[in-house]
């Protein structure tokens, strides 16, 4: 999962498509519209159309479809146990539940894969308490520092015979102590980050203001699709 986050971050910051140029707010509106349609529909065929639309959007944003599908399938695996327990003998119920999981998670992947994280978290930080808004920034930032450290540590453990796969108790001991090491590192890192925040004149709020509300012509695509999806969902619901 660590490499997934790094990959999504790379797609978001290096892409140049219309989706990447659109503002974070417009893409959030599209995701909200998609979620509305996904949740309200009871027809597997409609879900199929929504799924095809999200896949087309991902392709137009030049996000690698295979990798995006793998990310989207993750919650589907978890939902499968729930779906199995609720199975009523028809194919529609599992198709509906799994289709909803996949369409909504691919919609979320489209948003994060085309929006750099400061633009993504800035509007959220405006409407949430400081602990959540600033916490999102700091968690995401700290994660990348930790990611590199964790990868080096697991490699070092393997190279030195710490994780051989031959003795479970010994492997567990080294893995547990490795995690303890990560905890200590994160403590040190948070202290250093606090010192840096003080030096830079931190005034009680991490600022995440960038281009999240810079509206441009590129916003027509997500906003137009959002209107279309909501209108189609409402009209289809009214005619059923």
């Amino acid at each position, binding site marked *: *999962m*660590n490499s*997934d*986050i790094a990959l999504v971050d790379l797609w978001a910051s290096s892409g140049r498509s219309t989706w990447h140029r659109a503002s974070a707010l417009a893409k959030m509106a599209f995701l909200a519209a998609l*979620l509305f349609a996904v*949740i309200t529909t009871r027809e597997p065929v409609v879900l199929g159309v929504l799924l095809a639309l999200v896949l087309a959007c991902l392709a137009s944003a030049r996000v690698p479809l295979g990798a995006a599908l793998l*990310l*989207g399938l*993750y*919650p*589907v695996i*978890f*939902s499968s*146990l*729930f779906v*199995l*327990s*609720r199975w009523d003998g028809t194919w529609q119920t599992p198709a*509906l539940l799994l289709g*909803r*999981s996949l*369409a*909504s*998670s*691919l919609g*979320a992947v489209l948003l*994060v894969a085309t929006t750099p994280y400061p633009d993504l978290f800035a509007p959220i930080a405006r409407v949430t*308490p*400081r*602990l*959540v808004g*600033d*916490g*999102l920034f*700091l*968690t*995401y*930032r*700290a994660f990348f520092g*930790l990611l590199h450290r*964790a990868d080096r540590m697991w490699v070092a453990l393997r190279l030195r015979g710490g994780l051989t796969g031959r003795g479970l108790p010994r492997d*567990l001991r080294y*893995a*547990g*102590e490795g*995690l*303890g*090491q*990560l*905890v*200590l590192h*994160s*403590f040190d*890192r*948070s*202290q250093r*980050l*606090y010192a840096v*925040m*003080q030096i830079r004149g931190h005034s009680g709020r991490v600022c995440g203001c960038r281009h999240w509300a810079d509206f441009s012509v590129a916003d027509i695509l997500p906003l137009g699709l959002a209107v279309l999806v909501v209108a189609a969902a409402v009209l289809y619901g009214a005619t059923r």
Partner: protein
Amino acid sequence: MTHLHIADGVLPVPLWLAGLLLAGGIVALVSFRHRNDRADRLALLGALAAVMLAAMAVPLGPFGHLGFAPVVGILLGPGLGFVAALLVNAILALLGHGGITVVGLNACVLGAGTALARPLYRAARARFAPGRSAAIAAVGSGLASVLALWVVLALAGLEPAALAAAEAGHDAGAGHEVHAAVASTARFFALASPFWALGLAGEAVLSALAVGFVARVQPGLLP
């Protein structure tokens, strides 16, 4: 491992709306309580939430991964531990690893365990060493998360109208629906319990080892 990434569109709307309200209320309360904290607490919250995300890359069996919520709960305490659970679920939801609409419910499920970890650890420390106390806290915290998830899923199967009719004894069909919902929730737990048992054991062992290591190297960090 003891929490489940519930996806969008699986649970009824009133349930996930209630989850968002509950999680929002708890966060508002915690924010008010910690309003005068220095910024280093915020930096620590971010750092430990990031550790939770990094630890989730450690697989525990075919359907799960390490959660590390008990260790983060022990280090941060109940309030900030709950916020860390919310942050982790929000980032996971944005990555497609769980629903956006159910961030509140997922946070309540994972946060129930995180919030209990420190009180359980403190109670166990009166008799046991840090590592063993962390294992006890991890088991207790994992069970709390499973219980919270059980409540969510049981509520998910019960349509409010059917429940009201069944309680009033008006509708035999509604009573049947309630029984069916209870049966499907029980079926889900029968399917998931082997994975939970495996995850709970792994979580307890790794939490004990990690906390034992912290206790040896920097004991001052533990409560």
